């Protein structure tokens, strides 16, 4: 069923091995300079933030109903049944609607390339498909990043909150945000401090557009009928008038007069 990652910030020791493993799996360069960068980018898909010795990971949330996949006109981004939201560069035409739509600001772009790709964590889709945990979870030495079934991880997170209520902010981030995400986060400090918005809607974002979009197939025949009907009525009046003897000339499309001013 659907896989998830549970990241418990209280267990994290800021070793950044997840960053390195992520770079390796995605064939990205990783050295001390990259390790020092404190934001996600087209060459760094996950980052461990450090604020007064409190840590927090950022990575693609792999939403249950991703805005990015719903807005992509060519279906280059897709949600897989296993959980990961994957990207197919060969389909992409580079409209960047996914970047505009993502509520977490995750997709990044290769601005300096001539054939740019959208870049983001894809939750190690190939590994997950093969039944393995993601690279970041596999390497994590403390169990701060844990991979498993979403239902089981939620139960575990709830249990940790119950057992150590003083240790955590009472919130599993990703449980309900924008309809739920495949990444679940626990923290001892408010999530806002690391740039996570806690005012996000619980509704999956795609329904905001699909509510309107889904009506279009109904609208087309209705619109055609109404417009055709109006045309028939307005022109029928004319026929009646003509039949009643009023001289009215039929001018149809704009007449082909020559240009006058020459």
């Amino acid at each position, binding site marked *: 069923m659907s896989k998830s990652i549970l990241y418990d910030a209280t267990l994290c020791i800021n070793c950044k091995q997840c960053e390195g493993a992520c770079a390796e799996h995605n064939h990205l360069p990783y050295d001390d300079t990259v390790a020092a960068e404190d934001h996600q*980018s087209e060459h760094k898909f996950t980052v461990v933030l450090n604020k007064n010795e409190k840590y927090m990971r950022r990575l693609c949330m792999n939403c249950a109903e991703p805005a990015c996949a*719903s807005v992509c006109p060519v279906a280059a981004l897709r949600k897989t049944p296993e959980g990961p939201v994957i990207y197919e560069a060969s389909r992409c*035409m580079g409209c960047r609607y996914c970047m505009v739509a993502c509520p977490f600001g995750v997709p990044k*772009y290769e601005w300096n390339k001539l054939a740019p790709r959208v870049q983001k964590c894809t939750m190690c889709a190939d590994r997950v498909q093969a039944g393995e945990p993601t690279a970041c979870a596999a390497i994590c030495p403390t169990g701060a990043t844990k991979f498993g079934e979403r239902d089981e991880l939620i139960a575990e997170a709830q249990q940790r909150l119950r057992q150590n209520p003083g240790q955590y902010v009472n919130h599993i981030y990703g449980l309900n945000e924008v309809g739920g995400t495949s990444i679940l986060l626990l923290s001892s400090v408010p999530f806002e401090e690391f740039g996570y918005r806690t*005012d996000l809607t619980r509704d999956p974002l795609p329904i905001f*557009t699909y509510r309107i979009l889904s009506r279009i197939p109904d609208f087309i025949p209705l619109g055609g009928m109404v417009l055709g009907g109006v045309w028939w009525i307005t022109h029928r009046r004319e026929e009646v008038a003509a039949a009643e003897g009023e001289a009215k000339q039929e001018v149809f499309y*704009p007449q082909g007069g020559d*240009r*006058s001013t020459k």
Partner: protein
Amino acid sequence: MKIKPTFWKLVFLFLMAAGAYATYVRFAKGLGPSTNLSDQFPWGIWIGFDVLCGVMLAAGGFTLTAAVHILNIKRLEPIVRPTILTAFLGYVLVSIALVFDLGKPYNIWHPLIMRNPHSVMFEVAYCVMLYTTVLSLEFSPIVLEHFKLHTLLKIVKAVLIPLVIGGVILSTLHQSSLGTMYLIMPEKLHPFWYSPLLPVFFFLSAIAVGLAMTIFESSMSAKHFGRQLELPIIKELGRVLLVVLGVIGILRFEDLLHRGVLRLMLKPGYEMYLFWLEISLSLIIPLVLLTQKKIRSSAGGLYVASVLVVLGFITNRLNVSITGLESSAGMHYVPKWTELAITAAIIAAGFALFGMAAKYLPIFPAEEHHAQAEGVPAAGAGVFVHAGD
């Protein structure tokens, strides 16, 4: 307002040269070096102005064809052709702008075979593609007439009404859908502009701008092509424009009221100033002007009101697509010179193409008042004048 053609030719040449160099930078170096776009701000003026405003400014095409061919308002017929020409050129230029903006423009055809019916952009892509085809067919009689291809002309005229109906439906869909595109970001767009009614506002304002552009265009043609101004026609358009603006104004107010945003209207800040700029230009001043019978009946008054409406709704589109997103992005976006140069070149090309079409094709109906036109220099090469993009 007589303008020396040579001056405008120089301006045109300068804009084209700058545009050509900017084009080189864009395609040789990529989007990064040629724009101020970034991961925080992925859409700039090529989307906000060239695409969103371009499609809106071309809305006169469906508004006028619907009025003349569906509602059978024959009085408006003399101005249908220039309006269709504007619309057709507008959509062609929007497509060109998209080629600049897309990261991989050679994949622009992908939506044809790679479908995602849940995507608003997918729907817009299809509508724009189909509607550009419709516009080229609606425009084709002008060309066919010129080259005396009577058989083809007959065929086009036979399918004209279904074409017009299709065009109106397609326009309704994509004009409103450009607003729907922004419904996906309730967390990002400032509450002045994020509204469940965005599609309705985009559609109604497209009609208003379509009418305003038609008034503007008729006035410009009168000035620069030495034509008689069709004052009775544009007076009629002015009255319709007044009603449409009234509807938009009421709806906009009700929307702000019910979403509880009215209190923000008096809270000084970046968004508030831009909101008032937009509302003043697009609604308040034109409404005040057009409700005066004297202004509504004069060529000058209608011209000023229509220019304000066009500028006002351009401000609206830019607020939705750029300024309204700045605070959630945590940064200000200012376009790079290359972005501006390409946009300016596209607009200039629009003016030039319109001028050329007006010179070589039977765009305007035969003038009845030749005496009026005499003594006024004929339109020169397409470089100066006239509404485009």
